[in-house]
Every structure is written in C-alpha cells, then in structure tokens.
C-alpha cells in the first residue's frame, strides 16, 4: 500500500469579487483541480511546474496548512490508509512533523537570527514532546546536525555564522527531528550555488536511503528531478499535465508542455544547442481558458478545435504513464 495516496484533490482560493465591491461577495479561483498521485515508502516524487502552477498549494493542502482563503473543495489525502482531510486539528498536529514534515521554501532564511541553531531545534523537539529533558534534547539536536553533516559543536552558533548551504542543512535536520516517514522539500536548492546544490542533493539521497524516507521534491528545476526522483508529476495551471516514471518523462514525454519544458532546459553536455522558450505565460486563475489550459501556448501540430473547448481527461496511456492531452498517443 502506498504511504501517501492523494486523489482528486481540488483547492480553491476565495477572493473578493471586484465587481461586487470589497467585502460583498467573493469568487473562487480554482488553484488546484483534481490532482492525484501515489507515493510508496522509500520512493521519491518530483513535483514540477512553473511558478504559480499550484505545486506548493498541493503540499500545503495535504498538510492542511492552507491560508485562510484556501478551501479544499474535494479530494482525499490517504496517509497510511487514513484520510487526513477527515482528521481533527488536534489529530492533524500529530501527523505534521511526525508523519509528514516539510522543508518550506526559503525556510533557511526564516531561522530566528537571535537564537542559536541548537536552541531552535531543542524547542521543536520539546514542543512536539519527543524529548522532554533539555539535556537529552540537546543531545538529539547534536545527532541530527551530525546526520546532515554539520559538526554538532556548531549548534551553539547563530544562523548568521552559517553559510547558505549550512542553513539549508540545519533546516533539513529540523524537519527530520521527529523521524517523519515523508519529507517534503519545497525548492530546497533555489538560491544556492551549483556545488552547494549538489551537496544538498547528495544529502537528500543519502538520508532517503539511510532512513528509508519517502521524499517529495517540489521544484521548477527539471535537472534536480532527473537526478534523484523516481516518479515525476508535471503540473500546469493547477492541473496534472503528465504523471509518469522519471525515465518516461525525460525520454518519452507525451504532453506538449513537458516536451517544451525539456527543450527549454539547457544541457551542459550539449553546449551550443538551441534553447526553445515557451512563448506567453501561464493563464491567470481568474481567466482560465475553457479547454485545455495549455492550449493558448501549445504549438503542437495536432492542435484542433477540441483543445480549446474541452478539458482533456487524464488518461493512462501505458501502465504508470498518465497524460492529460487530447492527442497524447499521436504526439
């Protein structure tokens, strides 16, 4: 059984209706529609898409951490067979960090600057009543730092004494404090140098193997996904465009969006090759096209009237390879 099974998850954001005036009436923007995926214990999934396509919203929704305006319209989030969406807030608190923990985007810049790394980790350990005694908690904080490759004595330093890569490691260590079974990493290497990025990738790979973690990586960087993920979910404007194994996505992409995204990604082994860009930008949520959401930017030769009229269903074209395109098999 999959440790995490998300089915038909849809999330709306409520916003003031500009026509009705503020405070009177609101409209729902469909930020995420019918997103689903399965994650087995010890495997890794990459969630890829441009900014604003709903990647982070999906993760926030399954941890039930959406902002006030966010509503889960329907769907199921089965964690170990239990639907998290039916949990009470108190039960949910038991799942966060212990069951599923998340390294938020930019978390490395959100460390408290006036407290030592160790004290911030101890606070987390005690709040989640993993360890009550301060001494034991400090001991555990040291072990966690060791696990991510930071000498434990540096726990007594402040965040400003850490480099960017070390701060990111410390944040990952914190996320591992309660021995979670799933780790969600949201853009874990943006704003880091290539070499540090490789160090973090290596760390995630090693942690995954050592702790038998399931990993969800949210990123817009296809290269990162190719390096460590087993499965890939490509999202576009709040919907799944393609969902398949990493090998299929990179070597046999079926959705035009996936194909264009791959063409836009420079490959260091083929210098001087041409880079295709995807003209235009993703649709605004308050102005979604009636048919396929990628249709206005799609340049595929099979494009026909139906693309602009009907939302393509997600079809499994071969075992484990799902595509939402009317012409998937032909492309």
């Amino acid at each position, binding site marked *: 059984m999959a440790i995490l099974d998300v089915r038909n998850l849809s999330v709306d954001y409520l916003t003031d209706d500009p026509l009705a005036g503020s405070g009177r009436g609101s409209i729902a923007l469909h930020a995420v529609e019918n997103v689903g995926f399965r994650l087995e214990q010890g495997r890794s999934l990459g969630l890829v898409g441009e900014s604003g396509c709903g990647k982070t919203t999906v993760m926030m929704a399954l941890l039930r951490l959406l902002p006030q305006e966010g509503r889960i319209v329907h769907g199921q989030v089965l964690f170990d067979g239990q639907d998290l969406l039916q949990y009470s807030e108190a039960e949910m608190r038991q799942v966060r960090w212990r069951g599923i923990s998340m390294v938020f985007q930019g978390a490395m810049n959100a460390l408290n600057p006036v407290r030592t790394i160790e004290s911030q980790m101890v606070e987390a350990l005690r709040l989640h009543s993993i360890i009550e005694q301060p001494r034991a908690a400090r001991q555990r904080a040291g072990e966690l730092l060791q696990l991510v490759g930071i000498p434990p004595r540096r726990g007594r330093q402040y965040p400003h004494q850490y480099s960017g890569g070390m701060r990111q490691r410390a944040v990952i260590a914190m996320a591992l404090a309660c021995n979670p079974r799933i780790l969600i990493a949201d853009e874990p290497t943006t704003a880091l140098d290539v070499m540090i990025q490789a160090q973090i990738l290596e760390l995630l790979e090693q942690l995954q193997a050592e702790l038998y973690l399931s990993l969800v990586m949210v990123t*817009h960087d296809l290269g990162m996904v190719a390096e460590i993920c087993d499965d890939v979910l490509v999202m576009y404007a709040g919907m799944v465009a393609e969902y398949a194994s990493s090998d299929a996505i990179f070597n046999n992409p079926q959705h035009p969006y996936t194909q264009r995204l791959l063409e*836009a990604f*420079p*490959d*260091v082994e083929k210098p001087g090759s041409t*880079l295709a*860009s995807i*003209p235009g930008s993703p649709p605004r949520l308050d102005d979604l096209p009636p048919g396929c959401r990628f249709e206005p930017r799609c340049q595929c030769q099979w494009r026909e009237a139906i693309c602009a009229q009907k939302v393509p269903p997600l079809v499994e074209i071969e075992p484990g390879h799902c595509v939402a395109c009317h012409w998937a098999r032909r492309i």
Partner: protein
Amino acid sequence: MEAQPILRVYDLCKYFPISRGVWDTLTRKPRRYVRAVDGVSFVMQRGEILALVGESGSGKTTVGMNVLGLQRPTRGHILLDGYDVTEWAQGHGPTLETDGGKPPTLPQAQGKAGSELCLATLSWRRRVMLLRERAQMIFQDPYESLNPRQKVFDIVAEPVEIHHLARSREEKEERVRAALETCGLAPADHFWGRFPAELSGGQRQRVVIAGALVLEPKLLVADEPVSMLDVSIRAEILNLLHALRRERGITILYTTHDLATAGFFTDRMAVMYLGRIVELGPTAEVLSEPRHPYTRALISVVPVPNPRRRRKRTILQGEIPNPIDLPSGCRFHPRCPDAAPKCRETDPQLRPVAPGHEVACLA
C-alpha cells in the same frame, strides 16, 4: 577599423579592507584585506559574449562592478574602448592600498595613445556619463531592481532624461519605444503605461534590459540575469541577449554560476575561483575538455535532464574558503581532488594548453 578589443582588463585586484578594532588600531596591527579579486586579466573582442563562471565568493560580480567603474580597483587597469575606466570614473589614477603600504609597480597600460577624447579636460559628471553610455548593467533580480511606483515608460526614459539624449517628448518616446520593442515588449504603448507589478517575471527582466539598452551601450554586464526566472522564461531572455549580440554587435559579459546556461550561448568562458581566473577558453572546449580540476568538478555537478545519464558527481566538500587568509600555493589545493605536494607551494599561473585555452594548474 582595425579590431581593437572593446575591453581589456589587466591584473585587476580589488581588496576590501576589514575594519580593525580599537586595540588593533592602537597597536598598529597591519590592516587585513578581503581579496575579492586578485590579479584577473582578460580581453573581450567586440560582439563577443564571455561567461564569467564561479561560485558565490569567487569575485565574479566584483569584476563586473569594476568594469563599470562602480568600484575603484585596488590595482590594475581596465580599458574600455581604449580609455581607462578607473581614470574615467574617478578622475585620477588608482590609489594603491597594499598590506605593506608600498605601491607596487603598475603594468604599463596600453592603447591609450589613440584616444580622441581628452578625459582630463572634462568634469567628473560628464566623464561618468560618457562611461554609462558605453557600458550598462543588467541586474539579477527583476523583482527587486524595478521601482514599483514608476511606470515602465518612466523607468526606461529616465536614462534618456539624465543623459539629455532627447530634445523633445516625441524623440524620447521614440527611443523608449525602440528599446522596449527590441526587447520583445511590442507594441510598446501597450506596456509602457503599466507598473512593474502588472508584468510577469520575464517581462520585468525585459524592462530591465530595455532600461540598459536605451542608451545604446557597447558593453552589457549581465549579472546572473536569469537565475531568478523560471526555466521556461530563461530561454527567452537568453535568446534575447543572443539576438542583441547578433543584430547590434553588443558585447556581453555574462556572470553566472550556472554552467548549463553559459554553455548555451557564450563564446568563451572564464572560470573563477577565489578571485582568480583558473581556466579560460572557448566555451564548447572548456565544457567538453575541462583541464582544471575545479572546472571538472563544477561540470560534474550540473544536473543533466535525463535519468539515464546520471553521472558520478565530484562533490567538493565545504565551500570557497574566505578570501582573507588565502591558502598557500594553489588556491584550490585544499579542496582539489588531485592535489599533489607541489600544489601547496607553487601558485600556478595561467598558461596556454591549446589555442585560446589557458589553465592555471600545475598538474
């Protein structure tokens, strides 16, 4: 016209002094320096795109700042179009600050003989303006480098006003229109009444580029122009820079830590480590036959978009050491996977290994 290089950098050094405490000042402890750039030389031909590649802390941005005259080099010369940038921006030769207080000997600057402009007779403001008309910068983050309260038109028109390049409103509009449309924001009147917040990331970066282009510079320093953008938009901006070179012969100094984008559109590549260039050569050659161990490591960690081609990564442990206490000998030896005993003693200099390809490594 004979092919005179547009930019020549000779032995550029930029040291930032570290502030001393009261005690250190009283005891006359020698001032210490962060050696951000320590002896960088390179030449750029007209219409060339050179990538300056390195991790943060390697000094690549500092080189860009000095080229634009935004900082005063500690030592060395930068000749833009045959004129000395340092003299241009500061009005006098570089002031020398060294550890011992003794001025080192300057390398003889060349190419000043043919200068038509006599910079010394101009005011400081006029000199800076002449420099800005020749060299402009494209900043990294289009979300932060545009004034949110200025409309696109005003952002792009501001340099025109400062430089008094337009005699009338129509002329100004014409220049702004040309710059915006060159950058792919067409029709220009559709965009110029908008505020940056109404534009997407890619469009903002185009506005930033238009603001630099409106003065019709010969040299653009692009400091990580795509690192804050989505992958699908990166290609657009890089293609735009490429087109500017092809159509207008603009020279571009592209600083980045991303070897993959650099490999896609640059002619030559200079890899920097701790304030020095360690490898310099044609981009395709550097990427396919890297000679320096640092270049090899950098290339090995660039993610390849194909799980079937997962490679063995050479991950260098730790980070660039701080440039205050530089390692003896080769600066790279403490992290070098192939370091030999001699690397600890001898500081390697750039030497040619193939036509146009230079490497600073003893191995």
